[in-house]
């Protein structure tokens, strides 16, 4: 199999569109936005880039993975531990090995270490997961998520347990975030058009036919898993160095569901879909978050509604799945739309 020319061209056009979107957001952050809005926007960019990273695996393979958040967690913790100066680490995470504790790493080193950790972990887990039958993979990745989460929670000597890492140095500025987004977007779009991406999509469409064509199923899935994991590691470590504080709860259901719902709503098979979905869910969350504390609208008092954001997202997902199972964009990328050439929606 070769690179798909058509897809490559489409990817190129899509990258221009998405790249522009991200750049505009970055510029707006730097120039116009105030502190709190900046935070939201930066967070949006980083989360979106991680959703794109997940899309590389989930979208191309058609297999839902809850486990990629585990890679996010590992990357975040390794980057955080590497960047934290030894004085601060001594009190919160005394069991961290000396070479890591003393590092006080700079941005590239912290990210690099995180990537190495993720590659090792994803490599080990990827092998059994690539061999599993499609019907069990999702539940198995859920088990992986729980596994990693509980280890992080319990191993307080290294991770500071449920309280998490705080005061992680802020090594990241808006341009680093932009760069991360662009790299991940480019990689995802390239993968989609690449022989490895195409093979994985063939397996997604019809396992039997793909096998008959000589496509190695397990290996294709493994490749997707690894690429996705690495990108996740990149996004996750940059996120950690921007967020400056995080705890195990960050890497569990609420966030897993949030990110996966962005994918589902936007369209599993498309990078643009991931961005679109992220935008929709983020906007929705922000709007509804104001409702959580209870507000007064035109004389009506709306009571406190904890978890309304989640409920609304869940309902939205159900509606999308029923109405358009492929998500809003299905497999289509921004670069696919040209005047007079709007193809069919969604994927059945």
């Amino acid at each position: 199999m070769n690179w798909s020319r058509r897809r490559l061209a489409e990817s190129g056009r899509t990258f221009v569109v998405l790249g522009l979107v991200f750049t505009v957001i970055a510029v707006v952050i730097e120039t116009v936005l105030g502190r709190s809005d900046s935070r939201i926007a930066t967070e949006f960019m980083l989360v979106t880039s991680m959703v794109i990273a997940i899309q590389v695996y989930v979208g191309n393979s058609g297999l839902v993975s809850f486990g990629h958040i585990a890679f996010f967690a590992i990357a975040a913790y390794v980057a955080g531990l590497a960047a934290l100066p030894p004085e601060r680490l001594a009190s919160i995470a005394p069991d961290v090995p000396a070479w890591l504790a003393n590092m006080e790493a700079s941005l590239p080193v912290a990210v690099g270490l995180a990537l190495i950790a993720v590659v090792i972990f994803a490599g080990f887990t990827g092998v059994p997961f690539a061999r599993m039958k499609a019907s069990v993979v999702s539940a198995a990745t859920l088990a992986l998520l729980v596994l990693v989460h509980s280890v992080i929670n319990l191993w307080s000597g290294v991770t500071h347990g449920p309280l998490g890492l705080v005061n992680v140095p802020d090594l990241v500025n808006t341009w680093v975030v932009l760069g991360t987004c662009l790299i991940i977007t480019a990689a995802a779009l390239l993968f989609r058009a690449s022989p490895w991406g195409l093979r994985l999509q063939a397996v997604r469409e019809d396992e039997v036919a793909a096998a008959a064509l000589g496509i190695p199923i397990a290996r294709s899935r493994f490749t997707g898993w690894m690429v996705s994991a690495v990108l996740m590691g990149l996004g996750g470590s940059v996120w950690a160095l921007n967020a400056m504080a995080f705890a195990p709860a960050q890497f569990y259901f609420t966030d897993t569901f949030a990110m996966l719902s962005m994918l589902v709503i936007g369209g599993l098979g498309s990078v643009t879909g991931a961005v679109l979905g992220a935008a929709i869910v983020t906007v929705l969350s922000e709007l509804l978050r104001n409702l959580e504390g209870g507000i007064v609208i035109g004389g009506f008092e709306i009571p406190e509604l904890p978890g309304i954001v989640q409920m609304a997202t869940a309902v939205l997902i159900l509606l999308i799945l029923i109405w358009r199972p492929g998500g809003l964009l299905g497999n289509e990328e921004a670069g696919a739309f040209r005047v007079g050439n709007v193809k069919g929606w969604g994927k059945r």
Partner: protein
Amino acid sequence: MTAQLLIQQLFNALSIGSIYALLALGLAVVFSVLGLLNFAYGEIITVTSYTMVLLVSMGVPLLAAAPVGVIAGILMSVFTEAVAFRPLRRAPAYAVVFSSFAVSLLVQAFIRNVVSPRPQGLAVPAWLDQVITIGGVRFPALSLVTIAIAVLSMIALTALLQKSKHGLAMRAAAEDFQTTRLMGAKAGRLILLAFAVSGTLAGIAGVLWIAKTGSATPDMGFNPLLQAFVAVVLGGMGSLRGAVAGGFALAFVEVGLQVFLPRDFVPYVQAISLLVVIIVLYVRPQGFARRVEERVA
């Protein structure tokens, strides 16, 4: 390790295993017919538990509340089928993962809002709290009841599957859904039946679970889901007998780990059993079920 301790732990494992086996069976029944896992399965336990808590707090005796709890579980299971599975019959397989996961989160959020995010307690009647001690080994009444109910349920399930026309159809569907439809069996009804049976089993497990733990929280369904999944994987996906065996095996592994692991590692028991599952899935993706020999004529 004295004989006394051994028997005690064996009994504990049996009692826990009974609940796991029921849980695993419920999950496996749906999987065997549909080939899909129900991610809102744990919420059946949750709904059953909260129903029990509600009724008992209103003064209803536990024995009367239990059947109502089971019915609530069946309703939850059937609700999941209607909302997360039926509309997505023609959608790709991953859609159901999301939809059932969404239902699960919806139920949790609903309970948080309508009831309370705080744990709700269930008072177990005095007679169930008793402990019979023989030769130094403690046999809590609740555990004895649990084992008995689990065994009875499994016998009832076997009777349903082996003796009734609908049970026969479910077994046929588990093997070859399309050909079963060719026999005139309505696909929709079969699936509904599978979810109802699943809900019954999970409902019973839920009653036993809440009686044992005494407290209900909105996210309590997650653990049972995981245990059920682990058990089903260990026993071989889709095999009902395997599910039961897997449930007991898991219980024995957990109890064994708790006994033999150094104190510091005990909290890691769940993590370790999950690790075991991943390893099993790698080494023997089909679980430990025996292959049925078939002649392809």
